[in-house]
């Protein structure tokens, strides 16, 4: 028991090795999913698993698409300014 506890607490005492690269942007996906789930859990009048899943996936998709559009626009603006 104490060994397991030590192992679990050790997981949270040293940071993970995450590089500054484009792949690190994928860390936004779990965050967007949790935002979608909690937001829809507060907004639905009654909680039904199927409805919650459907609404959360739609909101998650909307967030990701919006962020992708913003990224493309910013990339275009940067390209115009620097070229």
């Amino acid at each position, binding site marked *: 028991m104490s060994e397991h506890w030590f192992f679990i607490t050790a*997981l*949270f*005492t*040293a*940071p*993970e*090795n*995450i*590089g*500054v690269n484009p792949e*690190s942007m994928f*860390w936004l996906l*779990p*965050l967007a999913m*949790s*935002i979608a*789930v*909690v*937001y829809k*859990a*507060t907004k639905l009048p009654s*909680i039904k698993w199927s409805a*919650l899943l459907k609404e959360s996936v739609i909101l998650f998709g909307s967030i990701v698409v919006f962020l992708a559009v913003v990224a493309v626009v910013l990339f275009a603006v940067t390209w115009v300014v620097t070229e």
Partner: protein
Amino acid sequence: MLRIARENRLLVLLTVGLASWLVPGGGYFILKETKRSLIVFSTIVLTFCVGLYVGSIGVIDTVGATAWYVYAAQIMTSPVVAILGYITAGGGFPVYSRPNEIGQIYTSTAGLLNLLCIVNAVYLCHTRNLQITE
């Protein structure tokens, strides 16, 4: 008599808000919204734990260079954040660069999501009280 009823109502609202802050989803649990409280609890705690896993408990920085509003957002998750802040205050858990950023974003977002749930639970309690008294 009416004044006592109003004070009781305020006390109930405060209890729901405080329970939501102490344990994410606690306010919904008091309001007998068990499914909602389970979803909120598991999602917020998981988000917060992912932030701590990525950046270590060093992302809760009360004395370092972190902006005050990051800690303000983090502490909305639960008072447990204050205990973690006390542990990390000695500077024994240094974390920099991308893990620090991702850890802070995850833990602050968990806190802000819980703030949303606190407000929503208090509002839900308020509207139910109105329905009972009408």
